[in-house]
């Protein structure tokens, strides 16, 4: 027998041979699926307690809705841009500086962000100034825990927050769309309110980049833009801090920006909102439905003047 002749048992079975394309396809698919599965499980799950006192029992929005309908101008100004450009935000070795009028200045390292404070799940309504809303199961800790650790001095009246500044990588920061880095602020008593949290996750896992990874503010009774994403610096200050949207259009975005259906906005009627996923608009609630927890903060204030 010539060496070019194959033995019967060396010949690929005809049945298998005819399926060769399908086998290659499925092996590619298998590799791909395993990898994408790995990527998904790479987003760490968090351990947390469930909060019942402040959480709403309304139907939450889906993870898909929460992660692909975003306003995060650093990653682009379209609603889907933040999802598309999510990988442009580099969160490796993230540090948050806590400074200003405090006794204890410190830096939160990446691991501190997830471990230093007790995490809990808070299911909050989020009301965007553009008259749409969602219900989101955040994982985070009360900002008050961090304030207690920093020990603000008697001079501290406000907190100023500063977001990431990385124009080389963040597509939105290549143009002067807003006053970069994005800045926001709260009055100290607002920041101490138990509703105010720093969020590090949603749906039980660490925050996706487009939602403000690795750490963001959530102030559920204020319009969404107050809840600054991807925080780099938290400074305790004496004077009311400047905020990016207020610099952009002072007659539209005030420092307080509490959800208020009775105060008209030059762009959107704030009387109603569309819950993402619903067809008909629904009425907007005073302080986004959190009046019992926060109305006392603004007693005696003219809410039309301090919008």
């Amino acid at each position, binding site marked *: 027998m010539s060496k070019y002749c194959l033995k019967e048992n060396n010949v690929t079975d005809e049945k298998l041979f005819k399926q060769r394309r399908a086998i290659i396809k499925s092996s590619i698919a298998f590799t791909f699926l395993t990898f994408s599965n790995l990527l998904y499980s790479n987003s760490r799950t968090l351990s947390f307690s469930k909060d019942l006192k402040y959480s709403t029992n309304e139907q939450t929005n889906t993870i898909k809705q929460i992660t692909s309908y975003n306003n995060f101008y650093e990653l682009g100004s379209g*609603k889907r841009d933040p999802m598309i450009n999510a990988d442009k935000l580099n969160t490796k070795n993230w540090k948050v500086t806590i400074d200003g009028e405090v006794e204890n200045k410190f830096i939160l390292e990446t691991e501190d962000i997830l471990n230093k404070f007790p995490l809990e799940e808070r299911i909050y309504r989020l009301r965007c100034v553009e008259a749409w809303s969602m219900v989101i199961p955040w994982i985070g800790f009360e900002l008050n825990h961090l304030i207690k650790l920093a020990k603000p001095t008697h001079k501290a009246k406000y907190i100023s927050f500063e977001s990431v500044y990385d124009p080389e990588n963040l597509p939105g920061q290549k*143009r002067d*769309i*807003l006053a970069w880095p994005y800045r926001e602020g709260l009055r100290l008593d607002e920041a101490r309110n138990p509703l105010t949290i720093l969020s590090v996750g949603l749906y039980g896992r660490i925050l996706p980049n487009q939602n403000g990874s690795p750490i963001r503010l959530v102030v559920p009774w204020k319009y969404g833009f107050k809840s600054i994403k991807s925080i780099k610096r938290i400074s305790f200050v004496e004077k009311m801090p400047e905020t990016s949207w207020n610099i952009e259009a002072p007659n539209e975005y005030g420092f307080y920006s509490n959800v208020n259906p009775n105060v008209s906005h030059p762009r959107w009627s704030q009387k109603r909102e569309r819950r993402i996923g619903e067809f008909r608009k629904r009425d907007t609630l005073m302080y986004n439905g959190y009046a019992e927890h926060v109305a006392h903060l603004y007693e005696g204030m003219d809410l039309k003047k301090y919008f």
Partner: protein
Amino acid sequence: MIAFFITPLVFLISYIYFNNEIFNKTNYFISSTGYLALIYLTLALFIPLLKIRNVVINARSIGLASFYFSLLHFLIYIIDNNDLSILLDDLILRNYILSGYIALLLFIPMYLTSFNFIKEKIPNWKKIHKIIYAIYLITLLHIYFIIKADYLYLFIFIMLFLTIVIFKVFLNKKI
């Protein structure tokens, strides 16, 4: 009408209906019909520069498509809000709503004089059609008022408008 209005409309509606990743479908429908109206308005200004005579592709049919999309843009907004007090509030308090109404109102005489039997009665109809420049400018204002911070698209439309106007002035010696 079919080529420039019905066909893209059917595509748009099925795209919005079947795409599970558009989460604010009504707002998407409102803004895309608005942008389509403006794109057609730009084309209606641009087509006469080419000096082609075509039964299908001409300023009239494209201009009509622009009008139908603006009308649809307006109707969805009305149906979506569906409350007289809110609609009045919008009209009085919000510049972008007021400018939208004005642009649409100015469009009506252009629409009416697009019919041949009315053209016959109004020999000066071509003068009326100069309103298109006013409509375009007011539409640019309409967009300017609604943009929060990123003016890139508005800038592109301003540049297109200026280019077309400059070409018309220098090539045709008349607008």
